[in-house]
């Protein structure tokens, strides 16, 4: 019995040694980061670097979707929702040894809200015109007052990496687990372990476990996957379904499907009054029956099964079920039902003639569907829609356009009829949805920048979005946003097709990996990841 206990202890010790193995983690960025200044981050590569190097007051746990204290031990939001007060950890230092204090938080917030810097992260805090006041009450206490109430104020700090007010290294001095040691544009980015990182694990070991991270700049996904399979890199955070299956078949246990993600694929019709499309087509697109009929006539289960190899699911509506709190659970996926679609179309005077759908004025129903060129997944989805819609007599011309031309058409000239695109949602809930759902918003894609809401349901969505944005009561916010989801489902300005799964590939050499459905899927707990030292030395 004693021998067994000794062996067991040895096993645990060995496991512990492996878990804290140090070594270098390698993976790829798909482009060069445009900036290392955390306040100016807007591209994905910079965001990923900020995530790994930044120190944050509050962090959203990607697995539980709950907020956790980081540099701030506690925080409090005032009743009017304008002020947030933080109590900070004491005795912390930036990677270059500069002490951390409340002045750094004030400095970061001032930069974040500086109108001259146009910080994309700061935009989320801009609730009204006016100055943001920061008050440093002691070296470890600071409060920030905004001109108007900011909904989900604390959650927004998940994106705010604190910079040093005093360090000569400026933004290169960081509070996160790693700091930038070397950067060769177009080649790689070397991040080294921050010796001053403040976190320790439950056994008191200093975090992070890894010694360094090498981020290779690699745009080609084929090459990235081949390098992963050859063991040259340790993970791919976001994997397409076809690569996922390859990883699964060639390296057992390396492919991770964390379930349905926040990201939808969606289709919309151009309803813009000033668009150069024929008036009769705009009338089709403005008909709720027409849009809902299209939604019902497209077999989205087939799309998920064939295009995504089963690694997606038919979308319910504007939010994915992955957003546990905000998703309106009373909504159901619209079933594939071409007959029901034809009945809806008949209510608007559409009828079939020689297997072609004709509107009440005798126009054959035909529209073009634009989608980005070179995106095989969307081209396949478009081809499936083309086939499905042909079954109810609608002719679809699929047009693949280069991305700049597509963006030009959908945002400036409005010279398009329908568009198929996907979205990447980085945040939960309605905060990031304001610029899409307000009828005055530029990203209100189907009919942007309206001076007055052109339909009653858009007016109601405007009202509800403002209610949820200004309310500090989570229940009231949830009720308002549930209703928005309901209206979006009924009116179908966006036809939601599928929600992709959160797919990643991780080498078995990595430990403590807990894939989540919020990005980053794999390395959200980067300070706790470790790599098998035996392999690391190879």
């Amino acid at each position, binding site marked *: 019995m004693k021998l067994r206990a000794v062996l067991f202890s040895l096993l645990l010790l060995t496991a512990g040694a492996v878990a804290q193995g140090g070594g270098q983690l390698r993976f790829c960025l798909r482009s060069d980061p445009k900036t290392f200044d955390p306040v100016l981050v807007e591209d994905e590569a910079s965001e990923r670097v900020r995530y790994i190097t930044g120190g944050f007051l509050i962090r959203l746990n990607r697995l539980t979707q709950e907020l956790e204290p980081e540099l701030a031990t506690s925080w409090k939001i005032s009743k009017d929702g304008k002020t947030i007060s933080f109590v900070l950890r004491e005795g912390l230092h930036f990677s270059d040894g500069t002490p951390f204090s409340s002045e750094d938080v004030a400095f970061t917030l001032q930069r974040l809200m500086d109108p001259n810097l146009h910080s994309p992260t700061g935009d989320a805090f801009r609730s009204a015109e006016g100055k943001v006041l920061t008050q440093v009450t002691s070296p470890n206490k600071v409060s920030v007052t905004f001109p108007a109430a900011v909904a989900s104020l604390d959650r927004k700090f998940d994106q705010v990496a604190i910079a040093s007010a005093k360090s000569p290294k400026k933004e290169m001095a960081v509070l996160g687990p790693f700091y930038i040691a070397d950067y060769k544009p177009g080649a790689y980015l070397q991040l080294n372990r921050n010796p001053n990182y403040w976190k320790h694990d439950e056994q008191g070991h200093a975090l992070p476990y890894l010694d360094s991270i090498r981020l290779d700049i690699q745009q080609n996904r084929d090459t990235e996957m081949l390098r992963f399979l050859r063991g040259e890199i340790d993970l791919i955070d976001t994997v397409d379904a076809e690569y996922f299956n*390859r990883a699964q078949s060639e390296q057992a246990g390396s492919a991770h499907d964390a379930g349905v993600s926040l990201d939808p694929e969606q289709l919309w019709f151009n309803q813009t009054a000033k668009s150069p499309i024929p008036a009769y087509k705009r009338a089709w697109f403005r008909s709720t029956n027409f849009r809902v009929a299209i939604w019902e006539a497209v077999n989205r289960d087939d799309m998920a099964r*064939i295009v995504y190899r089963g690694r997606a699911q038919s979308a319910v509506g504007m939010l994915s079920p992955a957003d546990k709190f905000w998703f309106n659970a009373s909504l159901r996926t619209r079933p594939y039902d071409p007959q029901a679609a034809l009945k809806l179309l008949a209510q608007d005077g559409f009828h079939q003639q020689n297997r072609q759908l004709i509107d009440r004025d005798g126009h054959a129903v*035909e529209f073009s569907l634009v989608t980005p*060129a*070179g995106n095989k997944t969307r081209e396949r989805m478009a081809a499936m829609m083309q*086939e499905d819609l042909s079954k109810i007599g609608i002719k679809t*011309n699929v*047009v693949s356009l*280069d991305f700049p031309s597509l963006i*030009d058409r959908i945002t400036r000239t409005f010279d398009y009829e329908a568009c198929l695109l996907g979205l990447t949602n980085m945040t939960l809930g309605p905060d990031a949805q304001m610029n899409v759902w307000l009828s005055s918003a530029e990203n209100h894609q189907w009919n942007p920048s309206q001076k007055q809401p052109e339909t009653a349901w858009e007016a109601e969505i405007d009202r509800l979005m403002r209610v949820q944005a200004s309310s500090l009561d989570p229940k009231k916010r949830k009720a308002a946003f549930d209703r928005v989801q309901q209206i979006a489902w009924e009116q179908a300005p966006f036809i939601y097709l599928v929600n992709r799964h959160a797919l990643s590939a991780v080498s078995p050499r990595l430990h403590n990996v807990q894939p989540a459905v919020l990005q980053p899927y794999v390395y959200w707990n980067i300070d706790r990841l470790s790599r098998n030292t035996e392999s690391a030395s190879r």
Partner: protein
Amino acid sequence: MSGAHSLLRYISIGILGVVFLASLFAGSLAPAPYAKQFREDPDSAPSRQHWLGTDDLGRDRFSRVLYGTRISLLMAPAAALLASALAGLLGGAAGYLGGWTERGLMAAADLVLSLPWLFLLLAVRALLPLNVPPLESVTITFLILGCLGWAASARVVCAGAKSLRNSDFALQARAQGCSEARLLFRHLAPNLRPLLLAQFWISVPVFILAEANLGVLGLGVSEPLPSWGSLLRELEGLTAISGKPWVFVPLLLLIVSVTAFQALLLDSDTDRELKQGMSA
């Protein structure tokens, strides 16, 4: 002509004949419509129902190869003909007339060669209407290729015309009082024919491959119409082709057809004329 060359010629004619006939009668030979999606059977291996398996949307690959061959074998030569005609006209004029005409036309050819094709084609696509049926879109694609593909050939033709203009037989003809028009159309133009034919045959596979590349930019043949170009896109990505040799069939067909074209060219009168022309 040696026996081996005759055999090669017959084999090439046989291969091209079979390919042309198969594509011509695609409607009768294809086991399924090229756009029909067998959704219960996507990405399947060859079977009795699907001889070359199905693509990732469940469409019968054999049927798509037949129809795609028809598109590519009709459109690529048409585009090559247009490009070669333009090259013959402009390159021939430049070489024969020389002087400022030559300088001007060759400068134009250089300009076309140095143009960023990609942006030019993107701009052209952006100007086109969106609601274009697939067959019209494929015609437009090859028309653009034909109109832009003359410059390299024109340079070769220009050099050929120049050497012919200064050749001994041209000097002799002039010395004997032959008019310029007669010299051009009766003596020089027939001597340029093998050069133009060579440029034509070279252009055919180039345009087939160009169409395949344009597909990635949205300028190629639009869904659901197949072409060799769109079929070759299946080979995009190393992960997509592992363990599926049958997806190489369109590539094999392209290689065999182009080789057969080249074999015909090498073993034809054209080749002999070309060699004679060069030695003259």
